[in-house]
Every structure is written in structure tokens, then in C-alpha cells.
């Protein structure tokens, strides 16, 4: 933030402020993995707004690489913790709270009435009856499709899984992959599994399964995989060899029709030349009509490390990030959905669709398999999903292995 500091000094000089004012500035360190140009700019703007409201606080932002952050956080929380950092709520937060590395911020919730404003995410930031994180954004998952190829083969947008599979026949006849994904990094498979399981067995079952309360060899799990088996023959054959973004051109070029993905993929589709006229979004189709509709919406949040040096200002920052207007502005720049119920959503059709979808979800909001399940279980699970997509006949072996892992992970 060197240039920002210089800017502040220049501004200070211009306003003829005494240098003593700067000497009194309190420093708030903020470590984040929002290193993408757009999120980075959004956060820099948020920090600038915060500094404008609190001229006595100087926020020093330290931006790290996203993948590296996942391992670095264990390191810096125990060695040299910042005052504020970001991480994921629910199960990903649990080991850190258990280890006493997060600061209890329940008072920030009660003092600012956040339990009402952030009601939808209260369950996932609460542990041991206390709140530990402030969620600031989430985004929907669903099926992104190429409208042109739907027209080309005369398929209608499906609302049920049977219709979806029926469409797949048409796409296959036209030489188009009905469903595409890139599973070389494993996680895209989890999106497919989560939705199939949420639609087949519902949110409560899914939550219990990722919490290790249900055996993987359970018949209801098999029912989920039976639905998956229906679409496996219509899925891009070399998915295990490609990354998620390598499958984007397949949709762009019309070689594939549907992609189960998060809303962040829209930017990649549009980069490839798709527009609101050619790119479509559809909620994952209904499988079991008796199951209340649940959705997948990974949530990002900020927290205060237990070793923070400047706790009072960190709490001020927490309350600021939670505010409705701040979340509106932040998410406009992020291109995602604000969590605060008082916030507004941008007029992007995909965001509108997502907001519609998430705000009317009766069943519950899942966080994504690798956040809901513990890390070891998630890894084994996603490896199993990928294997199933290549060798569906190995299901028994896969489920037995996952069940073994469950026995080791949840104790």
C-alpha cells in the first residue's frame, strides 16, 4: 500500500494538516487472499471508504495468493497474526475456532443488530453459541448453458431431471456434450454431487452426510449416484484431463451445452464472447419433488485473529464490512451477492437470477462440499466423485473407500 500511503501524505500536505495527525494514526493490518484484479480493487475501495470514515485509522492491506493462503493462514495465525483476515465460515472455520485462533465477535453482532441483517448466514458463523465471522458475499451455483445449442437441437430449458436427461439424448445425436466440466482439480465434481444429493435427499440429509453422521454406503447415497449415472454417458469424456476453465471454451464454441458451475464462471464465458443473449442460467432441475429446494452458495467472510494487536479498530472494521450499504457497494464491484438483507443487488441478469434463487430458498443453503465436509473427507470424496465419472461401475468400491475414510476422519 505504498502508493496509497504516499497519496495520503500528499493529500495531507495539500490540506495543510499537521504531520502530527499522521503520527497518531493507528495501524490496522488486514491480510486477504482477494488478489484477483476486480476483488482486489473492490477491497481497496472498501478500505479507502473505511479510512475516509475513520481518518485516525490506517489500514495496511496485505494481499496474498489464493492457493498459498490456504496453507499460509495456519502459519501466520500462529506466528504473526494480522488484525483482520478473511476465511470461510462453517466447517472450514471450525478447526481454527477449536484451536482458539479466532476472536469471539458476538458483541459486534449484538451491538449492530447483525443477527437480523445477516440472518441467512447465522447458522454458519455460529459455533459454541458465539459468532466468529462476518460474511460479506456469496454467489449462486447452478447450470450455465449455451442458448444457441438449445435452439439448434430444439431442446427446451428443463425444470426436472428427467427432462434434462431427455435433452441429453438430443445433444448426443447432434454430437454435443450435454454436460461438461473439468475435473483435473477435483472441486467441480463436488458441485455436481452436492446438487444431485440436495435434489435427491434434501439439505438436512446432505448436511448430516458431510458431517459424517450417515454412512456413505447408505441406500440414499446410492440413490444420488444412480441419478448421476444417468448423465455420466453424456458428460465430456476427457473431463479429468482439463481444468474448469478449459471446459469454458467448449460451452463458448457450442461443443457442450450445460455446465454446473458457480456464478464466477459468467466472467469467463463473457470473456470468450458470450453475451446475455447466448448464455443462460437455470437452477439445478428437480429430482425428487417432495424435497424442499436447497441451493449451494459458498460464502466468504472476515474475522479477527485471537492474536490481533488492534482489536477495537478491528471490531470497527467488522461492523463496517457488515453494513448494508457497504456490502451493496462491495458486491457491485465483486459481481456477487451481498449477504446483508438490507443490501441491493446489481441489475446483472445472472445476479438477479441468483438473488431470486437464494432469497427464496426454502430448504437451506449449502456451502460447497469442500467447505461443508472436513478437508480429508472432502479430498477423498472428490477423488471418489471423479473416479465415478470415469468408472461408474466402480461405485461399490468407491463408496466402501469413502466409508473407510469417514471412519477415520470423524472421531
Amino acid at each position, binding site marked *: 500500500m*505504498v502508493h496509497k500511503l504516499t497519496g495520503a501524505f500528499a493529500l495531507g500536505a495539500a490540506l495543510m494538516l499537521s504531520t502530527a495527525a499522521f503520527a497518531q494514526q493507528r495501524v490496522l493490518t488486514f491480510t486477504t*487472499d*482477494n*488478489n*484477483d*484484479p476486480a*476483488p*482486489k480493487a473492490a477491497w481497496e475501495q472498501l478500505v479507502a471508504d473505511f479510512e475516509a470514515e475513520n481518518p485516525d485509522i490506517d489500514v495496511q492491506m*496485505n*494481499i*496474498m*495468493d*489464493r*492457493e*498459498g493462503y490456504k496453507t*499460509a493462514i495456519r*502459519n*501466520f495465525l500462529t*506466528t*504473526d497474526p494480522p488484525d483482520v483476515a478473511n476465511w470461510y465460515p462453517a466447517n472450514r472455520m471450525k478447526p481454527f475456532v477449536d484451536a482458539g485462533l479466532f476472536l469471539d465477535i458476538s458483541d459486534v453482532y449484538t451491538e449492530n443488530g447483525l443477527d437480523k441483517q445477516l440472518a441467512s448466514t447465522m447458522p454458519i458463523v455460529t459455533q459454541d453459541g458465539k459468532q466468529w465471522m462476518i460474511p460479506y458475499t456469496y454467489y449462486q451455483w447452478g447450470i450455465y448453458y449455451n442458448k444457441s445449442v438449445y435452439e439448434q437441437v430444439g431442446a427446451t430449458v428443463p425444470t426436472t431431471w428427467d427432462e434434462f436427461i431427455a435433452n441429453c439424448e438430443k445433444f448426443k445425436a447432434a454430437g454435443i456434450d450435454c454436460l461438461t466440466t473439468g475435473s483435473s482439480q477435483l472441486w467441480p465434481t463436488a458441485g455436481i454431487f452436492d446438487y444431485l444429493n440436495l435434489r435427491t435427499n434434501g439439505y438436512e440429509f446432505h448436511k448430516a452426510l458431510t458431517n459424517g453422521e450417515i454412512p456413505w454406503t447408505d441406500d440414499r447415497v446410492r440413490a444420488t449416484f444412480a441419478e448421476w449415472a444417468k448423465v455420466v454417458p453424456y458428460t465430456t469424456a476427457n473431463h479429468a484431463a482439463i*481444468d*474448469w*476453465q*478449459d471446459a*469454458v*471454451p*467448449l460451452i*463458448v*464454441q457450442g461443443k457442450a451445452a450445460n455446465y454446473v458451475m*458457480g456464478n*464466477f*464462471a459468467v*466472467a*469467463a*464465458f463473457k*470473456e*470468450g*464472447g458470450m453475451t446475455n443473449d447466448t448464455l443462460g442460467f437455470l437452477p439445478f432441475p428437480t429430482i425428487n419433488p417432495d424435497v424442499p429446494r436447497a441451493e449451494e452458495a459458498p460464502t466468504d467472510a472476515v474475522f479477527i485473529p485471537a492474536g490481533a494487536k488492534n482489536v477495537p479498530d478491528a471490531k470497527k472494521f467488522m461492523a463496517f464490512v457488515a453494513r448494508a450499504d457497504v456490502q451493496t457497494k462491495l458486491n457491485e464491484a465483486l459481481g456477487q451477492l451481498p449477504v446483508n438483507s438490507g443490501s441491493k443487488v446489481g441489475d446483472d441478469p445472472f445476479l438477479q437470477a441468483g438473488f431470486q434463487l437464494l432469497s427464496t430458498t426454502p430448504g437451506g443453503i449449502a456451502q460447497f462440499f469442500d467447505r461443508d465436509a472436513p478437508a480429508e473427507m472432502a479430498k477423498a470424496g472428490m477423488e471418489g466423485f471423479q473416479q465415478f465419472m470415469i468408472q461408474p461401475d466402480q461405485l461399490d468400491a468407491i463408496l466402501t473407500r469413502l466409508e473407510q475414510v469417514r471412519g477415520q476422519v470423524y472421531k
Partner: protein
Amino acid sequence: MFPRPIQQRSQAAQWIYSIALPLALILWLFPLLGVAVTSVRPASDLAQGNYFGIPSYLAFENYADVFRNTPMLQYIRNSFIVTIPTVIGAVALSLMTGFALAVYRFKANLLIFFMFVAGNFVPFQILMVPVRDMTLNLGLYNTYAGLALFHIAFQTGFCTLFMRNFIKALPFELIEAARVEGVAEWRIFWFIVLPLMRPAIAALSVLIFTFIWNDFFWATVLTTSPDAQPITAGLSSLNGQWVAAWNLVSAGSILAALPPVAMFFLMQKHFIAGLTLGAVK
């Protein structure tokens, strides 16, 4: 003379040579060529699946984006701040150890020399945890000094091997003659040995510079923030949250590769002299 000049070979051999050489060259340069082409490929090409074709236009803005999106200048500066003291430190230390081990006969001479050599055979990955803990306890974690000190310590082993053998190959009579004249030992080192070591110093400096500049492992283990991270670790920050921006990473990689390449060309004369010196007596 070896190798025999190609002009003296048979016609067929010359033909095969002139076909095989460009072929091998292209094969050898292919990955680099791929990186170079990707570095000027617009992001839209990648999203459209145009990975290996002709870029739809030459996106030189990738190079600007590298500097705009990440503190790349800071990373490059960090790399220099870590690399230059390391080169100076490792070469200076190894000149002294090399001189001592080559010139003086004492009991543990060979043992100490072997210890320096043996250090090279320790896979540095197994040092990761202890070294990280040590730098942390010394308060050097995520600092230039921590990274540079470790590199100096680790590289001195190899440099000592190099320098000791080099000094050993110098005519010992020079040193003896100086001793007869009553020249102090440190003056022998400074005025007789050091000037003769110039090609070796140049060669080793280029080598160590490249080693340290290209180090990725310790850069990721011992540094965490752009304040101290060298460019090799910083390159990964070009990748986004969701999208791997291969065009930007390629552009960044080319920028990162420039200093060692420039170093090699500038010092080429010394480099080759250093490698072949002492080969022919």
C-alpha cells in the same frame, strides 16, 4: 581437435547435421516459444479455446497488466535485494574457505572439505521445517535477511568445492615464491590468488546468481508477503481467484527470466573461460 569441424565430415553427415540441428533447436525451444506466444495472447483467446493457434491480436497489454495487477516491480526489487548479497556473500566466503583448504595443510583439512561437499548432498527439502522454525525464532521470517542468509549458508558448500579445486590447480610455486619473499599470508591471498581467481569468481557469480534468482522453494517457505517475496514466488499472485491467467503468468515469467539471461550474456566470456580454464594444461 575435438569436436571435429563439420566441414571435414562426409556430405551425408553434413546434410543430416543441417536438418537435425534446427529440428533439435525447435524441439528444445518449443516450450519457451509457447510461453512467449502465450505472453502476447489476449485473455479472450484463452476463453475461446485458442491455446496453441495464432493469437487473434498481439496483446502487449499483458505486460502492462503484470505491473498493474501485482506489485511486480516490488517483487523484482526483492529478488535483487536477496540475490546480490547472496552472490557476494557466498563467493566471498567460499574464496576464503577455498584458499584455506587448498593452501594450508592441517589435520582436519580433508574432513572439513568433505563436510562442505557433503552439504551439497543434503536434499534441501528435508531442511524445510527446521530452517523455517529457525528463521522464525531469529525474527528473520519473511525478511530479505532470512532468505539471503540461508542461501549464503547453503550455497557456500558448493562454492567452496568449486573454489578449493580452482585454487588447488593454481601453480603452488607462486605462493611459495611469495612466502620466500616474506609476503604476509593475507597479502598472498589478496594480491596473488585473488587476481588469478577472477575468471572463477565471474563464472561462479553467474551460476549462483541464476540459482538464487530462480529459487522458488525457499522463496515460498521463508517469505509470505510482497514485502519480501522474490519474483518467482510473486508470479503465482498473477493467477486470479478463479481463473488461471496463463497469459499474464507467461508474461511475468518472461520478465522474471530476463535478468539471469542478461547476466549470462554480459558475463558470457568469463563464464566460458571459467568452465574451460584448467581443462587444457
